[in-house]
């Protein structure tokens, strides 16, 4: 799975990736620096993901960071990055990822992912 995201993660100042199922379960995460708390400890992700209902992609701009959210066949992909990362490049990389993500299947419980043969 990590290979899939190599191009994005190798971009300067991209800090991490999370992939959520549409039910809001965190199925994959990779952060380049440790977080003060594990995201799965928070129970509001489900609500957060459901609030994205109908959103194809989103840019969230904060004072110190920005997030790019992309709807995929299997859920929502969230890229965490610094404010100076060119989002257009991240978007492009995510578009290129989509066919590969189609081949991934999330287990019914949403806790693990498999590659379709």
């Amino acid at each position, binding site marked *: 799975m990590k290979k899939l995201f190599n191009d994005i993660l190798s971009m300067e100042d991209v800090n991490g990736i999370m992939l959520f199922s549409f039910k809001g379960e965190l199925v994959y995460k990779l952060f380049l620096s440790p977080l003060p708390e594990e995201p799965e400890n928070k129970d*509001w992700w489900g609500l957060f993901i459901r609030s994205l209902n109908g959103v194809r992609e989103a840019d969230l701009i904060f004072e110190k960071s920005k997030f790019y959210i992309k709807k995929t066949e299997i859920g929502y992909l969230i890229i965490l990055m610094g404010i100076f990362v060119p989002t257009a490049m991240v978007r492009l990389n995510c578009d290129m990822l989509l066919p590969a993500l189609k081949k991934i299947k999330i287990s019914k419980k949403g806790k693990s992912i498999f590659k379709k043969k």
Partner: protein
Amino acid sequence: MIKKVLIVDDDQEMLLSLKEGFEKYNATFSVLMAGDGLVATEKLEKETISLVITDLRMPRMDGFALLSKIMEQYPDIPVIIMTGYSTPEMERLAQEGGAVGYVEKPFMIDDLANKVLTTLRKESEGGTLHSVSSGMFLQLIEMEQKTCTIRLLDATSGKEGVLFFCDGELFDARTAGLKGEAAAYKIFSWDEVSLSIQNECRQKERKVHRDINAILLEAMRLKDEAGEAEEPEVVEEEIEEIEELSEELEPETPDPLISIQTRLKEEVGERCGLEDIYQDNSWDGFMAQISRMGAFFGAGKLKLIYLDRSEPNDLILVPGYKTSILLVNSKCPRDRIITILSE
């Protein structure tokens, strides 16, 4: 509960004369206006509309396309078609498309008003209730396994919402800007509502997959969280500073909408693709979710959100005293606009 009727026509004179003609019915319904189907769909998204009257021939999105969109996304909203170019084929298509009425122009305004009143009456055929807690009442609906559409008005915020029940199960919910479970959480948190019951549910697709008790609990939890966020401890020495801040946030400050428009016009010009700009607090829940995620990652203050929802126009949400909503053409210079507005 005063219902909202949306009239859609590209003929401004027709819109104004209908609005004027319907004024004597304002104890029953108020009138909203839209110049074409696209503007109408934006209003449907933001407002809780009870009935749509639409012309057929309009630019950008015609009446048939609007009818089809309403049947797909808001099947509970009845549509009356009005046209100056009627043919039997058009009338057949309108009926097959789901329209509840078809009137040929010219018509008597009172005849159309009667049709509107008759249709609106169905909304409350199952009765109305005032000053009840939405959660408690809705548990009863579940227990009685009712199939119905319930329209609610929150006495505190003045917000309106719709809930769809099929055999006692909550199928869908809608309140300004929110749909499905997110809307249900909002509606279930209302303490004092007026509601009307329609004994049918035209929403066939289930979009809420949790039972009422779970939704009620989550709604209460969210409400508590929001309450805590709204009531921070204030120490005396901070009061002055907060008062100054509130003064800054009062609407007397330069209108944020004008300031945004000016910046976009000056820095991007007509190419900025700005279609509409307005303030709307119905996005507050969504903004709170995003801010919470930002806080988790230590991202600092939220500056803006750009949303692509696969629609002709994208949305930009700018937080403030009231959330500013920019409707921009999806082909706008997105990154340029984001940079300008987040500076």
